[in-house]
């Protein structure tokens, strides 16, 4: 009897405590700034990310908001310009609890030191571990480090084909892409393949015949592309025009798995393989709803590999706020920022749109990688690569 009474009292206190935590919320609306590239050469990506965060905000608000209050994502255009990004971040750090972005890498490098100095978490959800980790603990990485992630992937891919003796990579010198290509090498060698001299793809290349001929001259059995999606599509067309037939012996890296790969590549990319973190065939109500809404608003185009990142990031912020009892009280800004940052850096079992994962010291530990084959513009799962925790 006493035990039962004690249990009821404890439950009552806990519930009341939680209720107090919720009723202590000091904001009428959670405003989360998102430093995004809404204009410029990456505007297409920026609009996708913005759509995803707006969708997340709508879904959160439909379910009651964050700690009972609605959330609004405020899009702040950095225009891929560090001059603008820094001023915008400087404005944001004054009062914001947490931020999303910046996008892309030049703005991250210029603006994140401001977030670090002011001890505010800004989730750079679409950049590599190698960039995000420079700003720990005031950013979190959405991807594991390259040396951990890519060797098993490359080995898993090459290991499918017993005739794959020589592999060549096309590498565009942008940001972390050369490092990603470098990280493939260990896995390819483990799979028993000889890694040929990579072909560098100039960023302003408009035709690709010379590069493709240079690659084919080395007589590769397999090809990995580490370039932007449009260039990949054009190079695949070029390969086919020169007689390349083993389409599944072509692997496109995750950053190349983007809309232009499909729109420019058309039927010519049937049979190639790509890898990324998003398995579109997962059957879950949340993902199905997201996918349907995305396709409706993007002329039938399915979501691409990075389109879920900021959706999940906003939900992670929601969870961090609710689980740590953050109130949004400006007087507690510093301590509440730290609470959110600490929570996100080491959250366990975070339920993303497609799967759950753990974070450890700012980086994910158990996110799977998927290899797909493309047929008719759709991805078919070939292999799941599970990374060691």
């Amino acid at each position, binding site marked *: 009897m006493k035990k039962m009474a004690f249990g009821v009292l404890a439950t009552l206190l806990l519930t009341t405590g939680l209720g107090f935590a919720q009723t202590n919320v000091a904001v009428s609306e959670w405003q989360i700034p998102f430093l995004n590239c809404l204009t*410029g050469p990456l505007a297409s990506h920026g609009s996708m990310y913005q759509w995803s965060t707006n969708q997340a905000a709508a879904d959160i608000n439909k379910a009651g908001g964050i700690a009972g209050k609605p959330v609004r994502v405020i899009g702040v255009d950095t225009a891929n310009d560090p001059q603008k990004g820094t001023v915008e971040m400087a404005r944001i750090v004054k009062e914001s609890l947490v931020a999303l972005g910046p996008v892309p890498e030049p703005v991250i490098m210029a603006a994140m030191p401001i977030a670090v100095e002011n001890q505010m978490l800004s989730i750079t959800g679409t950049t590599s571990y190698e960039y995000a980790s420079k700003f720990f603990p005031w950013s979190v990485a959405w991807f594991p480090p390259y040396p951990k992630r890519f060797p098993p992937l490359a080995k898993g891919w090459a290991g499918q084909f017993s005739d794959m003796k020589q592999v060549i990579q096309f590498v565009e010198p942008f940001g972390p892409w050369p490092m990603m290509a470098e990280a493939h090498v260990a896995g390819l060698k483990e799979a028993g393949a000889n890694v040929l001299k990579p072909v560098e793809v*100039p960023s*302003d290349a*408009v035709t690709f015949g*010379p590069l493709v*001929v*240079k690659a084919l001259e080395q007589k590769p059995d397999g090809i990995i592309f580490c370039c932007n999606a*449009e260039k990949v599509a054009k190079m695949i067309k070029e390969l086919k025009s020169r*007689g390349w037939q083993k389409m599944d012996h072509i692997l496109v890296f995750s950053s190349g798995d983007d809309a*232009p790969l499909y729109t420019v590549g058309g039927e010519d990319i049937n049979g190639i393989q790509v890898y990324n973190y998003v398995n579109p065939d997962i059957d879950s109500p949340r993902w199905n709803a997201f996918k349907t809404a995305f396709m409706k608003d993007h002329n039938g185009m399915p979501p691409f590999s990075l389109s879920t990142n900021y959706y999940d990031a906003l939900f992670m912020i929601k969870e961090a706020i609710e689980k740590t009892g953050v109130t949004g009280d400006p007087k507690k800004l510093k301590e509440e920022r730290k609470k959110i940052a600490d929570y996100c850096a080491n959250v366990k079992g975070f339920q993303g749109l497609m799967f759950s994962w753990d974070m450890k010291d700012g980086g994910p530990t158990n996110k799977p990688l998927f290899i797909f084959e493309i047929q008719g513009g759709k991805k078919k799962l070939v292999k799941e690569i599970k990374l060691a925790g």
Partner: protein
Amino acid sequence: MEVFIAQVINGISLGSIYLLLVTGFNLLLLVAMIIHFAYPQVVVLSMYIIWLVLGYTGNNLLLGTLAGVASSILLNLISAPLFQKVMEKRGEVDINSTMVVSMGMGMIITDVLSHGFNKGHPIAFPDTLAGGDAIVRIGLISILPGQVYAFGVGVVAVSAFFWLLYKTRPGRAFRAIAEDPSGARLVGIPLLKTGLQSYALSGLLGGLIALLLAALLGSASSALGEQVAIKVIAVSIIAGLGNLVGGLVVGLSLGIVEAVVQGYISGTWSNVIAFVIMLVVILAKPNGLFGLKI
């Protein structure tokens, strides 16, 4: 040997892009005294218009072509008065003012394309535009119909405009208006009518170039114009401003140099090597290899 031939053909294909754009650039210079540094961006905008019309009309090539030509002519007609106003106080071609005006136009076009078309994603043209499979395929050597069209039309365009501008009465009238409107009026050349004809002519070429690039490249992005603009400017300067034949030779040569460097040395160093070669040439011959024609 097979590889070398393949690279040279690749180079000619790349050079055809420069050749077409430089020809349009030089034509504007010869008929209107406009140094249009954003000419490639104008052509890319026409490509986007072609894409839009093809999309709405179920890939009707004729309508797409007409739309491309019409948009190019319209852009010329809109921008020409701006250039003329800027240059009216100068007795000769003013590179600085016209360059900056055209840079401003280029900025506008590139940003509008990245904002307003296809949500900023690159656009893709139907494969049928490129004319189908390779005409020739021997080992690594491959020649596509689009490459043949681009090169062929480029050479024909240079020849045709050279003949028109230097061997015919209307061509001389165009050049007279461009060089000295007052003098042209004095000798009885109708300024407005002839001026409109010259802009229409360069617009026609611009639309055709847009179509050919669509066939050759198969896709376009908002940044495409900026990517080639610097090389187009460099080619026209190295060849000699306004020199049609020079533009053809230098454009093709640059394409071949780039292709050979990419094929045998390095992809990322191809721009550097190409520009260093051009730099050496321009220092040795400041008026261009083939001389100024303005």
